[in-house]
């Protein structure tokens, strides 16, 4: 039962990320130069991301079906790998500015990334659980990384308590599903005709556990506090990475276990509607940029859940028909990750030492002080709002299309209403940046410097946002391929 070389190939990205995590921890006492670790982390996250291609080329189930390396996994490995690469770029200057230890941060980031990779590739529930724990536990620590800050500690504590509670749900759900079907392997589960209350209950618990991770209402309450307290680059990571990975696992369960889709349709319908409204209505009254973006990320989870409702409704007609709905989720997660990374990076940089300048008022007249930054942030916000020529527009469009395809007109209309509510608070930020005069202090302080790493993040996310907003073809062609999931 020793693992074959091919098995290792299929989990190569996760191996690399974990190895670099260990390596960073090992080198930490010996190397004093901070830049060394940044370069090492950049190299490591990039290496893992590139290795995703190797894993893809040698695709197939690994470790007797515990993991699966297919197009779907490839997509998510690229996504989480790129996210962690960009987070490293943005975090370097941040950690220097805040005078925080650097090596541990990268080590935790590596473990979190590896966990997300496992989550995306898992085809067995306990493996998924391990992935979830790897990413969650690292996330708890990262959230509290600014030890001196009360808010950061509060964030970590909240995240930890509620997160472990949710994980317990997830684990209990696995146990029940195992009891009902006699297996934790998703593909075997698909074959067993085990049904009944036990399976339903188990699936419901799994849904609750994952619902927490993706911040779906009514399990979203932690999000604003955690997002606000965590160091901003970590917030960027939270909003892009773990969320995508948890969604990936959900999609995987749908794609392999038809029984799940049968029970989950209404659950997703309600979750989607609740989450959209919870996020958007909450965001309306926010005056802190991090909280505003946190609520916005809840709202966006709601939009993605609309596509999930479409998936569950279509999947009963065969996976062929559900393909556009899957594609909608994948594309949305990509466009969303780009935008949120960009936006949070700007927020992080403008926040200044100790993250003081996070209030909306601090953005007054930004367009005059730093026209390029204001323009970039506007583009990101417009992408979140779903305006054309940004990736967010296509993301939203594909979800609309999936919803209408599945005859979920009422849900599509709810989403439309929510988009307009969302427009208000995104516009408010743009209005403040462009149509209000800067405060005397801010004007006197002069422009906030943007180091090269941060600029690189902005450039990449900006180009990606516009590129996929004008020419989404390569991505769409890839995620619409019939062999997205290998069985």
């Amino acid at each position, binding site marked *: 039962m020793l693992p074959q070389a091919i098995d290792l190939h299929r989990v190569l990205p996760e191996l690399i990320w974990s190895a670099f995590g260990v390596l960073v921890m090992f080198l930490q006492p010996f190397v004093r130069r901070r830049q060394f670790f940044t370069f090492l982390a950049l190299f490591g996250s990039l290496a893992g991301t590139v290795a995703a291609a190797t894993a893809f080329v040698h695709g197939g189930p690994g470790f007797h079906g515990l993991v699966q390396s297919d197009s779907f996994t490839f997509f998510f490995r690229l996504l989480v790998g790129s996210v962690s690469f960009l987070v490293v770029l943005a975090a370097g200057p941040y950690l220097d500015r805040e005078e925080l230890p650097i090596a541990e941060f990268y080590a935790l980031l590596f473990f979190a990334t590896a966990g997300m990779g496992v989550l995306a590739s898992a085809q067995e529930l306990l493996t998924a659980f391990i992935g979830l724990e790897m990413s969650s536990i690292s996330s708890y620590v990262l959230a509290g990384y600014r030890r001196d800050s009360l808010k950061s500690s509060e964030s970590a504590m909240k995240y930890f308590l509620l997160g472990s509670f949710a994980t317990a749900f997830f684990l209990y759900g696995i146990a029940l599903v195992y009891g009902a079907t006699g297996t934790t392997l998703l593909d075997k589960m698909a074959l067993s005709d085990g049904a009944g209350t036990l399976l339903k209950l188990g699936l419901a618990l799994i849904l609750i556990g994952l619902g927490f991770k993706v911040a779906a209402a009514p399990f979203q309450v932690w999000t604003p506090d955690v997002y606000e307290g965590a160091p901003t680059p970590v917030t960027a990571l939270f909003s892009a990475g773990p969320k995508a990975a948890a969604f990936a696992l959900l999609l995987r369960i749908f794609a392999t276990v038809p029984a799940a889709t049968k029970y989950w349709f209404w659950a997703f319908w309600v979750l989607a509607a609740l989450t959209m409204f919870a996020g958007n209505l909450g965001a309306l009254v926010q005056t802190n940029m991090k909280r505003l973006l946190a609520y916005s990320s809840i709202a966006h989870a709601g939009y993605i859940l609309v596509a999930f409702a479409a998936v569950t409704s279509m999947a009963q007609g065969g996976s062929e028909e559900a393909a556009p709905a899957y594609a909608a989720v994948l594309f949305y997660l990509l466009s969303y990750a780009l935008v949120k990374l960009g936006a949070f990076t700007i927020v992080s940089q403008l926040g200044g030492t100790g993250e003081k300048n996070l209030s909306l008022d601090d953005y007054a007249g930004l367009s005059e002080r730093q026209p390029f930054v204001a323009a970039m942030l506007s583009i990101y916000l417009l992408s979140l709002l779903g305006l054309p*020529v940004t990736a967010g*527009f296509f993301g939203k469009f594909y979800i609309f299309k999936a919803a209408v*395809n599945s005859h979920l007109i009422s849900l599509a209309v709810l989403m439309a209403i929510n*988009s307009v509510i969302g427009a208000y608070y995104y516009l408010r930020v743009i209005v403040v940046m462009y149509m209000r005069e800067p405060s005397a202090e801010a004007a006197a302080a002069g422009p906030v410097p943007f180091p090269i790493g941060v600029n690189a993040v902005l450039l990449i996310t900006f180009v990606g946002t516009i590129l996929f907003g004008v020419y989404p*073809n390569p991505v769409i062609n890839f995620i619409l391929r019939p062999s997205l999931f290998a069985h």
Partner: protein
Amino acid sequence: MPSGGHLLSVLIFFPAVGAAALMMLRGDDHRFIRSIAMLVAAAEFLFSLLLLRGVPIGASGYQLEEFAKWIPAPPIHYHLGVDGISMFLVLLTTFLTPISVLASWHSIQHRVKVFFVVLLLLEVGVVGVFLSLDLFLFFLFWELMLIPMAFLIGIWGHERRVYAAVKFVLYTMAGSILMLVGIVWLYNATGTFDLPTIQQMLANGQLVLEPRTEMLLFLAFFVAFAVKVPVFPLHTWLPDAHVEAPTAGSVMLAGVLLKLGTYGMLRFCLPLFPEASHRAARWVAVLAIIGIIYGALVSLVQPNLKKLVAYSSVSHLGFVVLGIFAFHNISMQGAVFQMLAHGVSTGALFLLVGMLFDRRHTFEISEFGGLSTPMPKLAAFFLFVALSSLGLPMLNGFVGEFLILLGTYQRHWGWAAWAALGVILSACYLLWSYQRVFFGDITREKNRTLPDVSVRESWVLATMAIVILWMGVGSPFITRRTAAAAQTVIDQVEPQWAYEAAAHAKAKAHGNNVSSYAAHTMTVERLGNR
């Protein structure tokens, strides 16, 4: 590829190139920036004149089409085309943009570069909307022009500019996002976003929408357009947006953006959902008539000159909507003509109001009075434009209103009778406000020394006046070119009507009574040959 080459693409993207070039410039040489912006806008206008050659008179269907694959799944195409109606609306846009540039010459002193960049981007969006034949592409441009307009209002507007800008965006977006759902729904039913293809499928019975679905789709599109027009009771954003916008913003808003709504009704609501349009026509007409009268009455009591002009737009656009939903060739042509006429006249009115504001920094009518003494030229121009707006024969406003009323009368005389009230009221509010502003004694000392129009301003106003006069006396130049396109819309919305018409014509050939349709055709011919 048709012989038209890439004229339409050039028309859409030339201003974008211009805007990009402007962005490269240094921000402090205002004169140079203005000149470049003017150059771009003027060149764009000259390019657009080529459309007149590209769209033959009497040709039905779309001309100068451009077609390219863009996104494979779902199949979205870059499909452009122009017909008689959209051609003139594009011309209106490209004509008003350089006018707006000139109008902002001195009145915009703050962030000059960004202003002209935004103005040119607005032109990109608007021209794109008029030329798109793919629903998706249409929607894309439709949303795209929102942000430049919001910026125009929000950055360079007056005191409550931010409120007005946000209100404008939210209203429009609330309408348009439902339209997106409608567009996707339509795609699901047809498998394409291509407008001509969908029209063909409707014509040959490949696509049959059940009445309820059709009505919902109609509403999804109609509400988006109705917000833009604006149709009563969705008009409340308009006065705010107009009053707060800078002059150029008002000119573009009244001149072009409102027409996007009525254009959308013509291009999408009627041809795509004929049955639903018929069923809704009565209610739309009621709203339009309420709009006509309500807009006029509010104008009558407005103490704010700019708001007065804004509400007069509600009234005038009510005519256009009425003309469209009367489903009559003459009223349809009248609606198109009225869109153009209103664009020029109201654009000119906003210019004049803007000039008064530049001198006195107020829109309050009570602050003016007796202005014809210090500014005889401005007073003369104002009178001319006001007369055109109230529909004096020989000037442009008359042609549109007359054709609308004539056509509407043939179908529903009651509608026409109510709408005619609006004509009378518009004379009242325009002449009365003119009297209060320009005649009588000078009540404010400041007004005694106001400078008359400058050379630049008089060039702008003279151009507008010439166009107004030319449209009034040379209307066949336009109606001949829009006739075929208007008839196409009628045919699409009313195949049955066309059928009856043929029967009537046959009856006429047999020597029976001259049918009403024959009378219409003759009127059209008379108008055409005038």
